[in-house]
C-alpha cells in the first residue's frame, strides 16, 4: 500500500496514534487541515487510483456516530446499530459497494472513539434488552486496527456492558491486539469468507483463505466467539462444490458448533454500484449473469435463483455441523423481495 499523504485535522496533532501511522508509512508527507471534508471527496478520485496511491485522513467524526442498521442486517429479534470508525478499505473486492459509495478511495480514520462509546452507551440505555453494535460497515474493522488503537476502548466498554454486543467484521488476519485481551462473551469476531476460488477471483489484495482460517482457529482457541459471513455468494459453474470444500476446510480447524451465527447473502448492488463495478471490472463474470432489478431497487439474482442458492448453501452448512437456528439470510427480508 503506497501512502503518499497523511492529512491530520488540526485538533488531533497530539493524538498518540498519529505516530503509529508515520512509523508505518515512513515516506508519507504530513498535511494539517481544519476539517477532513475540506479535502476528502472535495475532488473526484477514481476508485482504482487506490492501486497507485492512497492518502490517509486522521479525523474527528462529525454528525451521527451510531446509526440504526437497515432491516434484515443481523440476527433477527435484536436491535442492530453500527458505528463508523473509518471510511474505505485497504482491500479491493470487485463487488464492493464502497466503490460507488464515496467519491474517493482514500482512507479516513475517525479517532474520537470516546465520543462514539458515549453514543453507544446512550443507545444502549434506550433499550432494555441486548443491543448489537457492528463495526466495519464502511471499512474492514480489523485490517489497520493495530494503528488506530480503538480496540482497547471498545474492549473496556463491552466488558462493562454485557447487554451490548459487538461484531467486529473482517477479512483480515490482523488479530494480534485481540489476542492480547481476554475474550468477552458479548464480542463476536466475524469473518467474511468465500470459497478459495472466489477469493482469488474477486477479493483482490485480501489475505488468502488458509491464513484467514488460521486466524479464526487462533481466536477460537483463545476463547473468542466467531461469526461467519458467506456473503456475497456468487454463482459459478461449480460454486456448490467450492462451498462444500470451504465448509470442510472450516470444520478441520474450528468447532463449527460453537460459531455464533452464519449469515448467507448473494451478490447484490445498488444501480450506481453496479455501474461502477462494470466500469472498473468489465470482465467480471457476475456482471453478465441474469441479474434483475428487484423491488428494493437493488440489482440481484431473481428471487427463485436466490432462494435456490441460499437454501443449497444452507443445507451444506447444516451438514457441516452448523445449527440451522444460527443461520440467517442477509438482506433477504420482505422488503428485499
Amino acid at each position: 500500500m503506497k501512502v503518499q499523504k497523511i492529512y491530520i485535522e488540526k485538533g488531533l496533532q497530539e493524538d498518540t496514534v498519529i505516530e503509529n501511522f508515520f512509523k508505518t508509512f515512513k515516506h508519507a508527507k504530513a498535511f494539517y487541515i481544519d476539517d477532513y471534508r475540506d479535502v476528502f471527496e472535495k475532488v473526484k478520485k477514481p476508485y482504482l487510483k487506490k492501486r497507485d496511491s492512497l492518502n490517509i485522513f486522521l479525523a474527528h467524526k462529525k454528525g451521527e456516530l451510531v446509526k440504526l442498521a437497515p432491516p434484515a442486517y443481523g440476527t433477527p429479534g435484536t436491535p442492530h446499530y453500527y458505528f463508523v470508525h473509518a471510511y474505505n478499505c485497504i482491500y479491493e473486492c470487485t463487488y464492493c459497494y464502497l466503490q460507488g459509495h464515496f467519491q474517493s478511495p482514500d482512507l479516513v480514520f475517525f479517532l474520537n472513539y470516546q465520543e462514539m462509546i458515549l453514543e453507544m452507551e446512550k443507545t444502549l440505555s434506550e433499550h432494555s434488552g441486548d443491543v448489537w453494535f457492528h463495526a466495519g460497515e464502511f471499512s474492514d474493522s480489523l485490517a489497520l486496527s493495530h494503528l488506530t488503537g480503538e480496540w482497547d476502548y471498545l474492549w473496556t466498554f463491552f466488558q462493562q456492558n454485557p447487554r451490548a454486543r459487538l461484531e467486529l467484521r473482517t477479512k483480515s488476519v490482523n488479530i494480534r491486539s485481540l489476542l492480547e485481551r481476554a475474550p468477552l462473551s458479548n464480542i463476536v469476531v466475524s469473518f467474511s469468507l468465500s470459497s478459495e476460488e472466489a477469493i482469488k477471483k474477486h477479493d483482490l489484495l485480501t489475505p488468502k483463505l488458509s491464513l484467514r482460517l488460521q486466524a479464526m482457529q487462533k481466536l477460537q482457541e483463545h476463547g473468542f466467539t466467531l461469526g461467519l459471513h458467506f456473503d456475497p455468494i456468487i454463482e459459478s459453474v461449480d460454486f456448490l462444490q467450492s462451498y462444500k470444500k470451504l465448509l470442510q476446510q472450516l470444520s478441520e480447524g474450528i468447532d463449527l458448533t460453537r460459531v455464533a451465527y452464519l449469515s448467507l447473502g448473494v451478490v447484490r448492488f445498488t444501480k450506481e454500484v453496479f455501474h461502477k463495478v462494470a466500469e472498473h471490472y468489465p470482465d467480471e463474470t457476475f456482471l453478465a449473469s441474469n441479474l434483475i432489478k428487484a423491488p428494493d431497487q437493488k440489482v440481484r439474482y431473481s428471487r427463485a435463483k436466490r432462494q435456490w442458492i441460499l437454501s443449497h448453501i444452507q443445507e451444506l452448512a447444516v451438514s457441516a455441523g452448523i445449527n440451522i437456528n444460527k443461520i440467517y439470510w442477509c438482506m433477504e427480508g420482505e422488503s428485499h423481495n
Partner: protein
Amino acid sequence: MKPTMSFLFCFAHRGEAQIWLESAKWQALTTNLYQDDYKNYLLITGEGPWEASSELFRAFTCDLPRDQRYLIINIGLVGAFAHADLEIGQIVLPQTFHLAYPKGEMEFQTFSFDSSLLKSFPSLMNASLKKVDLVTSFERHHQESAAIEKMKLFADVVDRESWALAQCAKSLQHPFISIKVVSDQITQMHNVRVCDFVKEKAESFLIKLWPFFDQHFFQETITLPLMASSHINLELEDLTKHLYLTHSHRQQWHELLKKMANHLNENEQNKIVQNLHLIINDQHFRPKEKTKMIIELIQKTLDPEKWSWILQLQALQKTLQEHFHIHLSAPQQLEDLTLKLSFDIHRDQITQSSLLSPEVKIILHDFFDQLETIR
C-alpha cells in the same frame, strides 16, 4: 490488425515547442498547427485552460483529419510544491489532473492518466518517471498565499493547461498523456516576474525533454491497444446485417452479445450461430419476426430458468382468460410474489358472479342504483 496512431503534441507556448519544431520537417497547416511527414501534428494552444481547450477543439473540428486515432501528448513546464521533493529540471508524469479556480477553489471533476497506455511504450514504462498529481491553475499567479495552500493539499505540481486538455481528450475519446519538466518551486512569492522568467527560459528547460522523447516515442513503432477485449463470435456480430433491428432491439442485441461472450464457450456460440442461420434462411418469416425469434432463442439459451417461468405464466394467463375471463398482467419479474388480475363485469352479471364476495356484490349494486338516481 492494430490501428496505428498519430501523435498530437500540445504546447502552451511557441518557446516550449521550439526544439520540436526545429527537430523535424513541419509543415504549417494554420498559424499554430503543424504536420510532419509521418502524419504527426503539433499544436500551440496558448496559455490557460480556456485557451488550451478551445484551441484543441478547434483543431479537431476544423483542421485535423478525421477517422484517425491520436495520442494527445501535452508537453510543458510545471512549478513544483515544496512537499513534492522535486528537483528543477526533473521530468514528471502527471497521474491525476485537477483544476483550481481563482482563490484556489477546486473543481470536483478530475481526470486520470490511463496507465494501461504505458503498455504501448515499454521503454517509457521502464523509465520510472516520478508520478505526480497536477493542478491546472486558472490564474497565472496567486496573490493570496491561501490559494497556494489549498492547491498543494491536492497536487504536487501546477501548470496552466493540462486539466483542460485532458477534459477535451476524454470528450473526443482520444488517449492523453502529459509529460512535464519542473521549471521552478512554487512559493508564496510566486509572482508575475517568476512566470515570465520561466516562459522565457522554457526552451532551455525543454531541451532536456527532447532526448527523452526521441528515445521513448520516436524510436518505437507505436500501436494502440485494441479496445476492450471480447470473445464474441464475429459471425454473431455480423448477423445483424440480416435482421430488422429497431433502436431498442439493437441495444438488446448488444447486451445479449456481451452476455454470450461471458457465459458461452465457442462451441456453444457456434451452435447458436447455426440455429440462427436456420431462422434467417427460413423464407416463411418476415425480417421483424425473425428478429423476435432470434432474440428469444438467445434469451432462452442464456436464461432457461426465466423462460421456464415465462412459459408457466403464459399458461396461467390462458387458463384465467378462457375459464374466468380474468386478465393477468404479466409482471417483468415475480420478485414480490404479487400478481395483478383484472376483469370486466356488467351490472347484470354481478349477482351470478362467482368471483365476487356477497359484500362486494352489495356495494356494486348500490353503486349502480345510485347511478340511476343521478341520471
